[in-house]
């Protein structure tokens, strides 16, 4: 069990490419942290720096009270689960689990006890004599987790462990990882590009973009109050509707010209990005006035996904397409006019230039 502290950690490749630009995070003991972001945002690099597989250009990584910048991966008291499992292909499952321990000179009896225990927790007891190639994807993933568990490390590091599994198995393993981490109470850092995985697993989310932290917070907090347009569009599916608007004495207007009723919540004159989630838009009876945001749009497409449907609609003067979540029983026809409204607390404003949230 340990805390992890990252202090202004930077990674520069080949002298010029700055993959991670001064990231600082404090991770509490037993916390499940998810690093999430699009590919190339530096999340894997960051994880590999914590693991010690990548050199830290500047800054400091502490595990517990110890600065580990110059310490070998093996001595950092970490265990890592890799995307493609990285099982030793020529060893049986048992030996895959035991090898790391053997290598550390642990007594045979203790190794055996730990391997059996891990196998029991992960329900892989029956496969201990098999080679990895005789296992299914899900089973391999369990073995990879087992290899991490037997070490009883201070920290688990997960590098997109579920992205090679099919959708159904992914959901199942996601729940399992969460349960396991709760049971063991081990500090965990988990990297993924899947925002759903990130939301469901994390105690706290770290949203990364181009080597910078965009936002750190509990999943629901990040969802409710995204710190920037990047977070707003990355977290949540479908993504938040983002509209370029201008504010003047007459109120809010789309940059294309359509006026927006309501919602002008004392903003200075100028250009902004307005954000509203598909699920926060409601269909109103008519052009509403008063509180909140009010939009008038034309339906393009209705997309049923089962439990709900999504309406893709656009403004009369063109402009951006917006998405609205409606009930699965809604029957909106293409070309139909809709009036939408959103409560003021669900309308977000961002600076048009920096993309930062404005409260």
């Amino acid at each position, binding site marked *: 069990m340990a805390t992890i502290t990252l202090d202004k950690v930077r990674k520069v490749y080949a002298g010029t490419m700055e993959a991670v630009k001064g990231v600082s995070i404090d991770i509490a003991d037993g916390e499940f942290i998810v690093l999430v972001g699009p590919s190339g945002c530096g999340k894997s690099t960051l994880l590999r720096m914590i693991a010690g597989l990548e050199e830290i250009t500047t800054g400091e990584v502490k595990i517990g009270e110890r600065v580990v910048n110059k310490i070998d991966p*093996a001595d950092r008291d970490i265990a890592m689960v890799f995307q*493609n499992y990285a*099982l*030793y*292909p020529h060893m049986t499952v048992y030996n895959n689990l035991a090898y790391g321990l053997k*290598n550390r000179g642990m007594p045979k009896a203790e190794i055996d006890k730990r391997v059996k225990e891990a196998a029991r927790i992960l329900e892989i007891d029956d496969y201990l004599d098999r080679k990895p190639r005789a296992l299914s994807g899900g089973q391999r993933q369990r073995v990879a987790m087992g290899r991490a568990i037997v070490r009883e490390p201070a920290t688990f590091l997960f590098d997109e462990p579920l992205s090679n599994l099919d959708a159904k198995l992914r959901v199942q393993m996601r729940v399992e990882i969460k349960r396991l981490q709760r049971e063991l109470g081990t500090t965990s850092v988990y990297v993924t590009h899947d925002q759903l995985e990130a939301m469901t697993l994390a105690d706290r989310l770290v949203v990364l973009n181009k080597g910078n932290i965009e936002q750190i917070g509990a999943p629901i907090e990040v969802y409710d109050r995204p710190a920037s347009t990047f977070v707003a569009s990355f977290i949540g599916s479908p993504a938040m509707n983002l509209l370029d608007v201008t504010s003047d004495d007459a109120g809010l207007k789309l940059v294309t010209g359509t006026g927006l009723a309501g919602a002008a919540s004392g903003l200075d004159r100028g250009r902004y990005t307005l954000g509203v989630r598909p699920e926060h838009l409601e269909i109103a009876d008519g052009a509403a006035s008063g509180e909140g945001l009010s939009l008038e749009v034309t339906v393009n497409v209705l997309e049923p996904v089962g439990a709900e449907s999504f309406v893709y609609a656009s403004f009369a003067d063109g402009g951006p397409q917006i998405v609205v979540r409606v009930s699965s029983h809604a029957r909106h026809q293409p070309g139909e006019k809709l009036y939408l409204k959103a409560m003021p607390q669900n309308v977000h404003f961002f600076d048009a230039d920096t993309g930062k949230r404005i409260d």
Partner: protein
Amino acid sequence: MNKARRNPVNVFAAHAVLIVYTLIALFPVFVIIVNSFKTRKAIFREPLALPGSDSFSMIGYQTVMKQGDFVLYFQNSMIVTVASLFFILLFGAMAAFALSEYRFRGNTLMGLYLALGIMIPIRIGTVAILELMVQTGLVNTLLALILVYTAQGLPLAVFILSEFMRQVSDDLKNAGRIDGLSEYTIFFRLVLPLVRPAMATVAVFNMIPIWNDLWFPLILAPSEGTKTLTLGSQVFIGQFVTDWNAVLSALSLAILPVLVLYVIFSRQLIRGITSGAVK
């Protein structure tokens, strides 16, 4: 694999071509072995006939066993081939691992420099090598041959093995690092077993030229004590008279060990050649 439809005509044609090729390739070997069991007269009378009751003779083998220290030549060849292969595989694999695994200044240049040796035949440097061996006092030792063959085999070995090692997943090596394995353990315990087919390929490619080589044994180690099998067989080929029985018998014997080693490596070899091409 596409097993869907196979036109029997195509299958037949493909096999016919392969069979013809096999016959052509094996014909010289067949002639050598058949004639090694015949009397000298029979060899010249009907070179293609099988040994019969009147033409059968072991005289060639008897000559070989009597004359010259054939067992010693055999042993020399074996030592040189096995030791050279061992060093080629060991150093080749290690160099390939370094080139494919570590990022360091001049990595690509080093790789190109090593690959250059594939294109330049080592025999061009024979004079220099001989001078070097004379100066270091290695002439007429097996070590001289082993060193030269190792140098000769390394470029191709590094080239082939580094390609294969690049395919070994980084995650696997990193998993090993986190499990506390040293770089040597990662190399010997994780990476080498995975590139075993490639190692077998390199071994076979190198084994046959080394075993058959006449050039360097003749120049670097022609003394009685260090003759290899190929060189030793030359005693039966005179300027005016050639003892064909003995030559053919010696060659037949020389085929055996290569055949045995090839059978050992061949299963791995096929996997080595096709891996990567077929998933």
